[in-house]
């Protein structure tokens, strides 16, 4: 049932597959980035190492691929909150190599998570910072990953509360609406794990084209749960449902939300929590939807991989689980 694709060295800390599942980026605790390529795409049986270099001082904790429309590039997030963008290019007569094109974040304001979204106007990057700020950057030139412009900066709150103490965030989770094309405005979802309860609950942000600003259009938390720290969020691909599905993990469990498509007169989208599922002993590490948005895979503190689906009545339940054994 399980087929081994690759064995990796000591110190491997994170991995990321590209859009087609033919390239694998691997980060290590000593700051090394490695790239493995499928020898015969789309077969993934034999992966060959095509790049390996120490690119950062600290531990690489997460790697995110950029959308393929912008080339073969990854964003590496280090434990000390620095994001660096690396791109594979062949410049002039030189052979193919990975080059750094940009870095974000510093020691005082660490980047916790970044995600890329393609909008009608180009590539956008959302970055969540340890001080509770959310910044949206725009790529200025579609063929050049060096030039980014800060488009917006805000905090993950519905109402602009005047003051709360200096926020300190442990982690953040971002997920773009995976919808490609169409006339839809770009939107994303973000939740924090911080000491400031107002920031925590996951909110859906949508770009308001008319006023060129980002607006919160939905909050995915019941009134009594609003301060709960969010561990992971995942926006499901929508292949034709009349509503969106979003998964949000907090210590209370794994919540499945249905999000309406049409805003009310206040511009808000209707939300409904359709399931609260328990598993992973309350701490979810990661959530991923399949390409149909019908199956959710999760991993968590209990060391299991769990798969969740809705049955014919729309009732969410655990479909299967995998338990690693030696």
């Amino acid at each position, binding site marked *: 049932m399980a087929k081994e694709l690759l064995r990796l060295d000591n110190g491997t800390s994170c991995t990321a597959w590209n859009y087609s599942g033919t390239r694998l980026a691997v980060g290590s605790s000593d700051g090394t980035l490695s790239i493995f390529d499928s*020898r*015969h795409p789309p077969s993934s*049986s*034999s992966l060959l190492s095509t790049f390996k270099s120490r690119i950062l001082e600290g531990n690489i904790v997460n790697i995110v691929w950029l959308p393929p429309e912008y080339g073969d590039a990854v964003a590496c997030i280090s434990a000390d909150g620095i994001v660096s963008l690396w791109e594979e290019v062949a410049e002039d*007569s030189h*052979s193919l190599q990975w080059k750094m094109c940009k870095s974000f974040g510093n020691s005082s304001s660490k980047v916790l998570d970044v995600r890329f979204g393609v909008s009608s106007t180009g590539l956008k990057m959302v970055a969540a910072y340890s001080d509770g700020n959310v910044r949206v950057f725009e790529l200025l030139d579609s063929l050049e990953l060096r030039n980014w412009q800060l488009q917006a900066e805000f905090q993950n709150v519905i109402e602009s509360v005047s003051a709360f103490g200096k926020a300190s965030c442990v982690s953040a989770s971002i997920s773009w609406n995976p919808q490609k094309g169409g006339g839809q405005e770009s939107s994303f979802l973000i939740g924090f794990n911080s000491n400031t309860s107002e920031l925590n609950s996951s909110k859906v942000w949508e770009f308001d084209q008319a006023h060129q600003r980002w607006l919160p259009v939905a909050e995915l938390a019941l009134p009594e749960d609003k301060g709960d720290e969010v561990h992971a969020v995942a926006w499901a691909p929508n292949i034709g449902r009349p509503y969106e599905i979003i998964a949000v993990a907090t210590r209370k469990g794994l919540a499945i939300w249905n999000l309406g498509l049409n805003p009310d007169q206040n511009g808000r989208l209707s939300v409904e929590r359709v399931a609260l599922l328990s598993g992973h002993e309350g701490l979810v590490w990661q959530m991923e939807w399949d390409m149909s948005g019908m199956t959710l895979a999760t991993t968590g503190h209990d060391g299991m991989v769990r798969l969740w689906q809705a049955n014919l009545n729309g009732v969410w339940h655990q479909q299967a689980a995998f338990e690693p054994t030696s």
Partner: protein
Amino acid sequence: MAVRGIQRFPQNQYVDAVRWLPIESALERLAVVALFDLDSDASSIQIHSLNLNQSSLEPYSSWASPSRISSLKASHFLNKPLIVASTSGGSLHLLFSDSSDASFQSQVSLPEGSLHSVPASSVDLLDGGVQCVTAGEDGKLNLVAISDSNLNYRRLFDSAGLVSYTAVRWASPSEFATAGYGFTLHWWDHRKPGGPVSHFKANWDKKFTSGIVHSIDIHPSRKHTCLAGGSLGTVFAWDLRWQQQPIILSGAGAGSGNNAIQSISESEVWEVQYDRCIKSNTSSTRILPSMICSEDGILGVIEQGEEPIELLAEPCAINSFDIDQHNPTDVICSLEWEAVAILTRQ
């Protein structure tokens, strides 16, 4: 020229290319099949023995290739079958086979990465010789010759990626043609390095549709004409003597200018070969009849000024085919759905 029989042989592996092994034997029919097993990631070139009466196609001998075959040619040298293959890893292999038992006798190769950087390259072998020309999507052209049982190569041209080559074919011992993106064809003479001696780009179509030439063929009796097949069901002939006027036989340009030409396919024409089966009047100024296979599952014959003849309409793509030199009524083709088909014409 009706189809007398069609037999399909499931391979349970992806068929990258097929060729007949040109040996004159009353007893045996041999085919070369390049296979790729996705589950184990293993590539091989196999010689299969065909028995049409018992409808069997059995592997005789097999050679493991370091990577997938991107181009395959079969010929003979000193009365022995010779197979040349270029791989997606950029290596080139010449396999000498024994005509008596169809086993692989020896092989010489150039290692991965020496001729081309990935991904695909095309190779052609000079008839009756061991001189090869290779052309790659990386924009490199190489001449490969055997000497002291080693392969030597000479870089003829390097476009540094500005131009990618998708097909190559010898026209004479010193001339060959290459094909590429945007329906382009280049004519080369390896005695005149530095660039093509002539080039052609189809711009009959004023719409935004352009395409790639996937395969070219040159007939030994008409070395000045290059037959090309590619995207959008396009098949055209380029006569060096009337440079900018291609003769469109099917496809993209056919509809707009001249409605009389019927397209045999609307999708990628993966391979094109002159049909040796049809004896045409060689003195005629018409383009000789040719056979094509396509992504939409068509194997057919095109003749200038005639209705195209569909020999086979499969529910899946036909990715390559070969007409047997010695029995030109027989055609072998590779099907997308992990099978080889053998077609016999009357």
